[in-house]
């Protein structure tokens, strides 16, 4: 399914589209018809308070949680029923909440597992070097166990490991969570750099200001539905948003 309206909007085709997405956890409804789109090359921020359903949205896209209704379209094709390990193959890289590095394995082994689906060993080595130059602290600690890294280093490892899968769309869940302000800036600068290089990114954040500074567009999710959407600059200046999330 193609959307001529989107291409005239931005000149780019939609990569990911959520249409009326609903998710239930038992008898609790977490998402009430979420509508969202990420175009090729865009950095889209998904904002909202704790418990609004941001992580659930990402989990539904990557196949970890089955939607109750609605459609998830990837390049126009419906992802319904595909298991998580098949969805990764399509180019959707999900860096989950809470870092989730493999603590008992080395930094290098974690990164190599990020490329588990790939067989192009020369290109994998090249990407490994690129990750180490992007995150020099990981290069220093490449033989250490991932469980011994600091919180910020684990976050960087989790991002780098997702990059090792060469995703078309990088989905990040709260990469700034628990990081010192200086590290938040560092992570955001790296994401902005990846975006400049053409990577499409869907960034889930509670730190709305940091996310909107680097994003093209943003969505605000409240109680399982999109309450506000628009260009990042416009959202940054939105009175209601400023009052509730930007602390101004």
């Amino acid at each position, binding site marked *: 399914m193609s959307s001529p309206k989107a291409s005239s909007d931005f000149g780019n085709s939609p990569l990911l589209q959520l249409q009326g997405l609903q998710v239930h956890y038992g008898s609790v409804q977490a998402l009430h018809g979420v509508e969202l789109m990420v175009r090729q090359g865009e950095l889209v921020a998904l904002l909202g308070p704790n418990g609004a359903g941001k992580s659930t949205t990402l989990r539904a896209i990557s196949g970890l949680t089955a939607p109750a209704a609605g459609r998830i379209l990837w390049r126009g094709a419906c992802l319904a029923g595909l298991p998580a*390990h098949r969805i990764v*193959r399509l180019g959707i890289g999900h860096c989950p909440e809470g870092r989730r590095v*493999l*603590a*008992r394995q080395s930094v290098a082994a974690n990164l190599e*597992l*990020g490329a588990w689906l790939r067989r192009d060993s020369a290109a994998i080595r090249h990407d490994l070097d690129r990750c180490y130059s992007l995150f020099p602290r990981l290069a220093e600690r490449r033989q250490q166990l991932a469980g011994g890294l600091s919180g910020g280093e684990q976050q960087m490892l989790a991002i780098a490991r997702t990059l090792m*899968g060469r995703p078309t769309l990088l989905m990040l869940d709260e990469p700034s969570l628990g990081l010192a302000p200086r590290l938040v800036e560092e992570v955001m600068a790296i994401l902005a750099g990846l975006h400049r290089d053409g990577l499409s990114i869907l960034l889930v954040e509670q730190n709305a200001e940091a996310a909107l500074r680097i994003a093209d567009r943003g969505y605000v999710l409240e109680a399982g539905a999109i309450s506000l959407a628009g260009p990042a600059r416009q959202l940054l200046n939105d009175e209601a948003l400023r009052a509730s999330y930007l602390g101004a």
Partner: protein
Amino acid sequence: MDVLLQTLLNGAAAGGVYALVALGYTLVFSVLGVINFAQGALFSLGGYLTYLLMGGHISVSGGLPGWGLPIALPFAAALLLAAAGAALLSLLVERLAFAPLRRRNAEPLLSLITSLGAGLVLVNLLQLLMGAEGYAFPAGSLAGLPAVVSLGGARIRSVQVLLLLICAAVVLLLTLWLEGSRGGRALRAVAEDPTTARLLGIDSDAMVRLAFLLSGALAGLGGGLVGVSVSLPGPYFGIGYGLKGLTVLVLGGLGSVPGAIAGGLLMGLAEAMVPSGASGWRDALAFAILFVVLLLRPTGLLGRRLVEKV
């Protein structure tokens, strides 16, 4: 000196078998966090399959008295096929006793009961077919192998040496595979964090099936090896080894591969130190060791701390 060497070798051989059983538990435990209680029954199955594949016949008290397979394979081939048979049955156990519960997100502890049930059904089917009494492997099962070898003045049953070598080789191959291969690394990723593994593109359900396949093969190998070195004392004999393997598992530390190997050897050697006149005390000794180790190190010899994640 000879007696000591002899004792050590016997102990190491028995310990190797315990390590195989404990490794089988470890593989499944590491990916699912539960114990597969059907492991002992698969051990029995391995022993009986090896016996039948080598041309053994069913006794008069069995369900098909006098029946035997129309083939008589050499020991090595029979053992490998028996291991493959136990591996396939282990997959069936996963399908029947574990997968339905996982699909419904049931309490993982429930699979202790379902796997115990699957094991009891299997052992009782074996008893129906083969009868309750023991079987000895036909004389000359290990054709070409002298019954006894001399080693540094000690006279050792060569089957014990063979058993020890096979166990060592299997343990070594499994460890190398887990550490170095693509599948082994995927299995360890699933063991550590199934969700992350899925997001890396690893089919965690396939890895769970692989863990059952391997653990079934280990049980089948153990059963065939014990059968040829001692005998098949009855369909329940694997349950005894299964329980001993559980002891070893806890002794070495739940989920730890080196722990399962070290625990198996320790248990085998300790038992071998019990004088043959007091062999009734063997199991008492096993549990005394377990008691002392758990008193000093509640997580087992090489186990990790129970609370790892904050």
